[in-house]
């Protein structure tokens, strides 16, 4: 009888044990199947891509948290935590030709520098994910190995590369075409006024101020400004007028010195060239503006050219020039400064006109032909915008989601 009671007690304990354990919240968590960690494609090796299937239990009241571990340090570092219904392949910002953006899988890009600090590509790492609900772990993935690597090609930028290649082909076609016959270029009033401005300076016996702005030689607008300076200083040399070029950047000054010297040489007036035509003022924005303003106020030039990269000093310079009574011609590609030049100057070159100015003034067929490439580029953009609006509107109306995505991806910068 006692034996039977003991047997029954043992059986009861064995069967009730797991039930009690569950009641105490100590049930073994489930497994997240299909969890993978691979190198993030198209990057320099600074991130890893974690993927696992979207499960039926993924709801808004649950969350995923990912962990990473490096062999060097050991232990798990907590990464990103997010709602279980979020972060699918659709949320990865890559185009259709480089990425399958279905919603059947979770996808998370882990920035290694954020999680582990500065680690080189190829470092062996481990990752795992946990599904949390009401503070307890409901499921956990096995720890998987991963290592990032430096990739060789940004496939996501393929659209950009193709556009560039088309531009290069058109560029060479236009240049070779220019050798055979001339091309029509529309008049740019601001550039036509350069002769008038220099002539006025010659008649008045006053100097011309050419301000190349506060850009460095790596700024396209400063490079364009240097080309314009070449043509302006050639005319100044022909008219035997005086030009002053205050500089913000010493490298720009060095390049401009060579350009002006060459222009005087080409104009047949090397004797008129002086080294102090180009001079350094300051590498500080407002010191530069104050100094140039002072010179303009004192010397009352006949003409002021503001060509290049300008920020807040644009109005400080142009307004003082306007008050001094000078003819003012400005040009910049900083659109936030264009309104100031419009209001304070007689003529303003808008962005692309600044780039075109050197070719326009020099009238060299090879350079002029390159302007046609700019026109072609604008034509492509205009056609793309018009067609894109129609196609995306049509696709949205007809619920052709993939079609809309294709169109939007084609014209997006990655």
């Amino acid at each position, binding site marked *: 009888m006692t034996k039977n009671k003991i047997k029954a007690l043992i059986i009861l304990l064995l069967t009730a044990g797991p039930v009690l354990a569950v009641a105490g919240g100590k049930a073994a968590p489930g497994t997240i199947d299909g969890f993978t960690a691979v190198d993030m494609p198209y990057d320099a090796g600074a991130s890893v891509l974690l993927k696992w299937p979207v499960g039926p239990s993924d709801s808004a009241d649950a969350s995923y948290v990912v962990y990473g571990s490096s062999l060097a340090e050991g232990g798990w570092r907590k990464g990103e935590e997010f709602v279980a219904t979020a972060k699918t392949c659709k949320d990865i910002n890559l185009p259709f030709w480089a990425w399958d953006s279905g919603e059947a899988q979770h996808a998370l890009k882990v920035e290694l520098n954020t999680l582990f600090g500065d680690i080189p590509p190829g470092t062996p790492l481990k990752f795992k994910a946990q599904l949390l609900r009401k503070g307890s772990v409901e499921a956990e993935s096995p720890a998987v190995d991963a290592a990032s690597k430096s990739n060789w090609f940004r496939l996501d930028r393929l659209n950009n590369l193709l556009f560039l290649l088309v531009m290069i082909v058109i560029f060479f076609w236009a240049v070779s075409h220019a050798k055979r016959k001339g091309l029509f270029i529309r008049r740019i009033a601001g550039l036509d006024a350069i002769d008038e401005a220099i002539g006025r300076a010659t008649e008045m016996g006053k100097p011309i101020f050419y301000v190349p702005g506060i850009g460095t030689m790596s700024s396209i607008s400063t490079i364009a400004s240097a080309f314009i300076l070449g043509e302006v200083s050639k005319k100044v040399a022909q008219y035997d007028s005086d030009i002053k070029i205050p500089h913000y950047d010493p490298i720009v000054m060095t390049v401009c010195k060579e350009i002006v010297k060459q222009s005087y040489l080409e104009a047949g007036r090397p004797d008129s060239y002086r080294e102090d035509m180009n001079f350094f003022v300051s590498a500080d924005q407002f010191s530069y503006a104050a100094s140039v303003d002072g010179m303009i106020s004192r010397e009352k030039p006949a003409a002021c050219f503001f060509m290049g990269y300008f920020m807040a000093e644009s109005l400080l310079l142009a307004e003082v020039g306007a008050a001094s009574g000078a003819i003012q011609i400005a040009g910049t590609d900083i659109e936030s400064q264009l309104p100031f030049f419009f209001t304070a100057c007689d003529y303003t070159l808008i962005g*692309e006109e600044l780039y075109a100015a050197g070719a326009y003034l020099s009238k060299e067929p090879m350079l002029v032909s390159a302007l046609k490439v700019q026109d072609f*580029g604008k034509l492509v953009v205009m056609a793309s915008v018009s067609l894109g609006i129609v196609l995306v509107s049509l696709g949205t109306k007809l619920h052709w989601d993939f079609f809309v995505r294709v169109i939007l991806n084609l014209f997006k910068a990655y």
Partner: protein
Amino acid sequence: MKFIKKQIPLAIVMVTGLLMVASYYIPHKYSVDYVELMNKWENIVSAFAFLLGLVSLFYSHYGKIKRKADGWGYSLFVYIGFLAMVVPAMMTDGRQMVDGQVTSLGWSFRYIYNALSSTMFAVLAFYIVSTAYRSFRIKSRQAFVLFVAAFVLILGKVPLGQMIWDSLLGWTGQGVADIIEWIMQVPAVAGKRGIMIGIAIGAIVTSLKIIFGIEKQYMGKD
């Protein structure tokens, strides 16, 4: 000689330019390292060029003082300003604060450099008013459109303007804030984007001209 003066520099420009273009499409570490190396070189060249600029600055102002040119007294302030910053910087090893105390360099920065820079920046406010006055003189249809847009913007930004709008045009159901929002988001952005697209394409073409040696004025002609 032409080979050294022309062909080699052009080849360097082309190879360096093409590698920079390629680095946009190649994310590999070699590519990243190359761009970083170029940036370092640029900084080093800039540092040396700065000395060149300093020599040019001192030389031109020395000439003005020597010739007693108009306003030569201002040239003295170039040297005074230079010494007022450089001497404290050398005395304090370039530190503006030591143990929570402002050094002489910190003092110069705060009470000379910052004060002067702020003054110049503040002058902008007065220039904006005089520029606005000039541009608001309606001489053409374009100037009229500019005036109307600017007037609505100014009106909407001050409480009095909003009160005037509500009492005069409140019946339209459109608040002045909505009109401002529309002006800033639709015509202003459209114009801005048009300019930006032109600039972007112009920049690409200018870069191609330099990379492929079509534009080589910066090296002089034969």
